């Protein structure tokens, strides 16, 4: 399955771990759909940063598709 990269340079860091974010391979799942993406994440706790434009753009459209909206 294709992997979709949404990596970007960011100044965000994990507040709990005080570590800069690193590229990570993530499987995003929702209502039976499963997609391999690359996102920035905390190397220690795994907390993932979803950029706002991704969340309200492509991810929102995929959610609505899976919800039959």
């Amino acid at each position, binding site marked *: *399955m*294709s992997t*979709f990269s949404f990596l970007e340079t960011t100044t965000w860091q994990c507040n709990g771990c005080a570590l800069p974010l690193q590229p990570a391979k993530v499987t995003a799942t929702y209502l*039976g*759909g*499963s*997609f391999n*993406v690359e996102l920035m994440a905390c190397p220690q706790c795994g907390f993932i940063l979803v950029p706002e434009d991704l969340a309200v*753009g*492509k991810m929102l*459209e*995929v959610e609505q*598709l*899976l919800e*039959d909206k």
Partner: protein
Amino acid sequence: MEALSPCPPAPAITLYEQDELSELTGGALRPGGIALTAELLTYCNLEPGSSVLDIGCGPGHTLNLMATNFGLVPTGLDPSASMLEKAAQQAPSAAILQGTATAIPCEQSCFDAVVCECVLSLTGDIAASLREMHRVLRPGGVLILTDIYCKRPELQPDLPDLQSCASRALPLDAVTDGLAQAGFALVSLRERSDLLKQLAGQIIFSYGSLEKFWQLFMGAEAARRTCCALAAAPLGYYALVAKKEVRHG
């Protein structure tokens, strides 16, 4: 003043021959890809050495799977010369034929199985296609059939002329009725719309939106109309196995 001659109609776009779709689906040009094909072949449990016709073989991924993973003897049929050239390279042990589902260039009862994935709605005549599939199968032979279907036929979309199963989807009962009329007995029918949604989701992640994907093949207005039409009359995906009935007496 010279009379203006009408512009010749733009050639219909053949979606399955577009590189963009091939890159997204990893070569197998349909929802579920080669994994669904393997699942269905495993379910049918064909004996190694069984002869199988792949109708609409495209670039030959199913042919290669059948020969390499299942020990079957595959024959590929496709109307596209460019696809057949790719199939010959992908599956060198497969027999390759150029032709259509409505006039299969094979003798009757010469195959143990027929595979037809995401193709039937493209053939233009499902009754003739199913009769031909029945003809070339030996009695008791199996048919593996997958395709898009129209969930709300009363709202059948009015789509631009795009040679894709998306624009020619049939209601599911039209397919099952056609199978019965052609002399097939339904063995298994699975609703696999989840695979279609998965592919659509991958398209969105890859291109930004479904509308942007359709814009690769048509103008902006036609792409917008396509998205609206498909939203109004949603599509589903089915996977079925049927058997050519053995007639007695």
